Each structure stands twice: as structure tokens, then as C-alpha cells.
């Protein structure tokens, strides 16, 4: 299925779950409530119409600082990248962050048999940062969800072993949250460096 028909198929199957959808740059994206995530994922994996047997990636985004800082110095100082001219209209503009929630958990599904892929985004509020674990469907979700917990502090309900995977147990905080200070160090040995 191509991006548009894939989105339509998901919407037909889960009319109440899909908050929004877009096919920015040809990538099918569906934004769903977290309550329907597990059911949607099971259908995507097991339904013959989808057959998404491969969880390619599972990550998260912290949108809390989105749009609050000037454009990256990348464009200002380097001659390599050129900012797209505003006089050339973008026929397919980026739809922006999905909703006002601070975090978004992003899933990339792929079907090895049907060769189509779908991105599922699940907005998560900061106060109740928890979504259902997909470890019961894809074993590979285990370490990916531990990484998201480690870096963003989003919990996964039903995960068999939700502990830090990259940082050490003594580490305090979640370093990829935008409010984690860039210069903060938590050394295990030696002076504060």
C-alpha cells in the first residue's frame, strides 16, 4: 500500500483512535491516542492487510523547547546548508508537532512481505508519561523502550525489565529532556569535570 491508502486503511479500521494523520514527504504518519496503541499495534502486526512484522524503531521527542529558540546556527554560519528560499512555496509543508503534549513516542513499523511502512506517533503528557509496552508483540521493543525510559523518562506499562540501559543506575534525571542542563556532569570517578 502507498502512504495515502495505508493511512486510509488505518483510519477505516480505527476511526476513533486516529487523532490526525499526514503523509509528509511521502511517509505515512498516524497520530493516535495512547489507549488504542496496543490494539493498533497488534492489528498492524497480525492483520493480513498490514503484516507489519518489523518494528524498525521506537523513540521519543521532547517538544517542550520547540520553537522557543532561534534557528540553528547551522544555517547562519555554514556555507554547506542553504536555508530554503521563502519565495519558493512548499507544496507539502511540515505539519508541525502533533498537539500540545510535551512528549511524543514515535514508532516505525515496516512490513517485510508487503514492503510498506507506517509511522505512529503517540502524544504523552509530562504529568502522566506512560504508554503501553509493545514487548508482548515485538521482543525488540524491550531495549528500545528501556532507552526511551533512560533518555526521556517515559514509562512503559507492562515492560518486563524497565531499567536504565545506557546510563548507570546512579545517574539522576533523563539527559535528553530539554530541561536537563547541557553542562551538568555526574561522574562516577574523579572530580567534577
Amino acid at each position, binding site marked *: 500500500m502507498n502512504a495515502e491508502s495505508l493511512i486510509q486503511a488505518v483510519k477505516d479500521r480505527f476511526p476513533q483512535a486516529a487523532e490526525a494523520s499526514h503523509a509528509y514527504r511521502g511517509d505515512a504518519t498516524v497520530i493516535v491516542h495512547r489507549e488504542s496503541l496496543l490494539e493498533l499495534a497488534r492489528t498492524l502486526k497480525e492483520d493480513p492487510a498490514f503484516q507489519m512484522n518489523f518494528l524498525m524503531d521506537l523513540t521519543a521527542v521532547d517538544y517542550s523547547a520547540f520553537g522557543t529558540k532561534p534557528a540553528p546556527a547551522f544555517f547562519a554560519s555554514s556555507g554547506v546548508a542553504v536555508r530554503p528560499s521563502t519565495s519558493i512555496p512548499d507544496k507539502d509543508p511540515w505539519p508541525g508537532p502533533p498537539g500540545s503534549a510535551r512528549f511524543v513516542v514515535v514508532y516505525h513499523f515496516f512490513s517485510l512481505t508487503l514492503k510498506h511502512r507506517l509511522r505512529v506517533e503517540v502524544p504523552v503528557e509530562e504529568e502522566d508519561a506512560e504508554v503501553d509496552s509493545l514487548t508482548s508483540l515485538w521482543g525488540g521493543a524491550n531495549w528500545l523502550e528501556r532507552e526511551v525510559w533512560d533518555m526521556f523518562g517515559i514509562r512503559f506499562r507492562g515492560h518486563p525489565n524497565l531499567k536504565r540501559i545506557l546510563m548507570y543506575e546512579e545517574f539522576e534525571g533523563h539527559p535528553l529532556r530539554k530541561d536537563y542542563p547541557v553542562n551538568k556532569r555526574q*561522574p*562516577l570517578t*574523579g*572530580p567534577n569535570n
Partner: protein
Amino acid sequence: MTSRLGEAIGWARKFSIFQYPFVTACCGMEYMATACSHYDVDRFGAGLPRFSPRQADVLFVVGTISHKLAPVLLRIYEQMAEPKWVVSFGVCTCTGGFYDNYATVMGIDTIMPVDVYIPGCPPRPEYVLDGLLKLQAKIQTQHASGERPAPEPRPEFSV
């Protein structure tokens, strides 16, 4: 002051460097290139890496060290018998390099004494050999007991 015996011991030590390569990152490629026949580090008596710190004289720290790894590196260093030397290989081990984040140790000299710094990202084999020669000169001039001489005063930098 070095005696004639001290000189002889220093000469023997500097041409029988048994190194422990603590290789964690891309600098390992240049380390391997230096160790192989084209640059032939065996010309300087440093051709036999030992993979036990208890048999090694020089700790080559090759590549980025994270805070999670730092206790392991420190333990390796403490397991080495005196006299021992440390070579900081690559800019990540010298200063942290381009990493400035929650994960990376900003130079291994924050956790252990370092004898020779070889900056570069990664350093070329010629640069490594130059660092090795500087280490040999340092070993030669050290007292026979293996005691470290006082470090040379560093030039003041102004930014």
C-alpha cells in the same frame, strides 16, 4: 640526577615497552595502523601488546571514555605494576574532544595521571610514533626507581 645504572635501566625500559591498549573508539584504527608492519612500532621496542594490565608497562587509552566506563579504566590502571606510564591517545582522551555532554569524561587526566598526550581526531601514525619517542625520552630521564619527576611547568594560555 641519574647514575650510570639508572641510565642503563632507563635504556632497557624504553626499548621494552609492553603496552596495554584500552581501545574504545575510532582511534583504534590509527592505533592498529601504527602497530602493523607499515609503521612497525616494533622498531621502538613496543611491538608486543599485553592483554593483561598486570603484564603491561604503558596504558594506551585509545578513544572516548564515558563516565560509565571511567571506573573500569581506573581499575585497569590500578592493576598495573609500577613503574607504569599512561598515554592519552586522541583528542577525546586528552580533553573530551568535541563531546561536551552528560556522558563523556572531559579528558582522562581528570581521573588519572597522564604522561604523554597525542591529540588528533584521530592522530596519524607518524604523530603516534612521535608521541612514543617522547614517552621513551621521558622514561630514559626518569629516576631508576621509577619515581616520577616533577611535571614541567606548562605555558600559560590566553584565549
